């Protein structure tokens, strides 16, 4: 009897938790809803003040406007898309690789200067990106990288937030696992690839999503480090559509929508990894 009542009470509170989470969850999805509905708004709805969340008379006019705006250009849209995809994929791959390499010793080894390196990373997080924009330009031009893919890739490889998150996850992995590995004769290299990296899979999935979103949406480095039109990336190009004023607001909304599709795909691909529970180590501490 007592047990039954307890169970009933538990189900009851569970119901409320789920209700609460559903409400909040709907709220969390609003930006996505807004983005999609804005892309399909006819121009008179775009300028209602205050703006509406939902579209009333959905139309494809914005997309037509966007393609009309692009029709006069000499460089095909596919070129911008290719540039963006190439730059984003290479950057994300190396960001994760370098971050993994660096986070393992920073978390699990003791060596002089380790705390200083980590301190520098935290401090560098506190700077506005605008501060380093012009000096970065000077570095890139000094290295002779202007107008190359390297100029778009190299500066964003040292991604401090990524390393910070990966190190934080690595701290959660018990040291005993590595001690066991060492006793079994694994080299540092093996331990890193076979033990450390699989264990922090949620961290690198997170970094993939964050880094991809940041780089894919970044119009700034394309504007700064490249001059020729065929080296520009998609967000830069779409921001030039945006720059053409109020008349292009509809086309701009459609452009933003198109720009978001790849990041949503990456999110769907990797979110399962991010949110999978951290591997249970099987070690009781």
């Amino acid at each position, binding site marked *: 009897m007592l047990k039954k009542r307890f169970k009933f009470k538990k189900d009851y509170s569970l119901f409320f938790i789920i209700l609460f989470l559903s409400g909040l969850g709907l709220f969390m999805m609003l930006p996505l809803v807004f983005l999609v509905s804005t892309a399909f708004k006819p121009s008179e709805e775009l300028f209602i003040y205050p703006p509406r969340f939902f579209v009333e008379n959905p139309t494809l006019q914005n997309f037509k406007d966007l393609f009309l705006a692009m029709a006069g250009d000499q460089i095909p849209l596919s070129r911008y898309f290719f540039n963006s995809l190439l730059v984003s994929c290479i950057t994300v791959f190396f960001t994760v690789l370098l971050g993994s390499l660096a986070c393992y010793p920073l978390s699990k080894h*003791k060596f002089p200067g380790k705390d200083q390196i980590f301190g520098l990373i935290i401090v560098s997080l506190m700077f506005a990106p605008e501060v380093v924009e012009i000096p970065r330009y000077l570095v890139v031009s000094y290295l002779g990288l202007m107008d190359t893919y390297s100029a778009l890739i190299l500066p964003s490889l040292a991604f401090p937030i990524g390393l910070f998150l990966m190190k*934080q996850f690595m701290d959660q992995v018990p040291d005993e696992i590595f001690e066991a590995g060492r006793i079994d004769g694994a080299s540092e290299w093996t331990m890193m690839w076979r033990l450390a990296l699989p264990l922090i899979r949620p961290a690198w999935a997170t970094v993939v999503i964050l880094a991809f979103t940041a780089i894919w949406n970044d119009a700034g480095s394309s504007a700064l480090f490249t001059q020729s039109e065929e080296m520009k990336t998609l967000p830069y190009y779409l921001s030039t559509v945006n720059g053409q004023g109020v008349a292009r607001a509809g086309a701009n909304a459609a452009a933003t929508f198109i720009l978001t599709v790849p990041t949503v795909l990456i999110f769907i691909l990797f979110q399962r990894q991010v949110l999978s529970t*951290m591997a249970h180590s099987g070690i009781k501490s």
Partner: protein
Amino acid sequence: MSKRRGYSLERRKVTEGYLFVSVWVIGFLAFTLYPLYMSLKISMTSGKISDILNGEFVGLDHYKRVLTDASFSQVFVDQILKSLMDAPIISIFALIAAVLLNGDIVGKRYFRAVFFAPVIISGLMIRILNSQGAADFSIFQELGSSALLISDIIGEDTFARMGTLLWRSSVEILIFLAGLQSIPRSLYEAAEMDGATPWECFWKITLPTISPIVLLSIIYATIDSFTEPDNQIMGYIRESTITRLDFSYGAAISWMYFLVILLIILIIFYVGRRVTVNEGSQR
């Protein structure tokens, strides 16, 4: 023999450590640290665009100009107060969400995905709103008055602010989830045996155990709030650098702003260290 071996193993670990970190550090030096040094130099010289690095040394002149800039000090105080309020709200919300998402509930996976989703979209959304001239988030007025009752109770402004904060808490939720999962299950089992309610478990087990993570999340949220590209000071820096081409002034603002952030973070860290529960052993 064992002693010599141990030494050489330590030694090897050190070199391998340096080796693994070095690639990242080289990139960091070239594209972040050295540029930061250059911007410090720019902030103390008066260079023109054509020859920005070899300007005349003027010491702290630009910094004095920042201090006497009335419009800037207004923006500055506003932003600092705003950021200081944002960080705890984000952290508390993220903690509540993470605790709920960590429980045994139906459709846990979908809920987690939904709570993490704003990470890819919230920045863009703010950009669209700006481009439509609705930077004040009046969008919530419509939603607030028609769809939800809460806004009437807590006021529309607060509601709008809260909304944007919730969308920015995704990474913090993730940090908390990772922390919650590192708490040994056996602690809860023992507490349950002794008749502790979930409420007691939260205050006596969960919160003390993850208190270092709470500190981490507050620091992350504070930094994030101070450096998000849409805040007023970032706009001010961008304006003076790109629109007015006054690089030295922009760099001086950035460095002063950075020093204030650093000071605030150090205070949070110092206070936090005393409040958080230290685990006896280093993990």
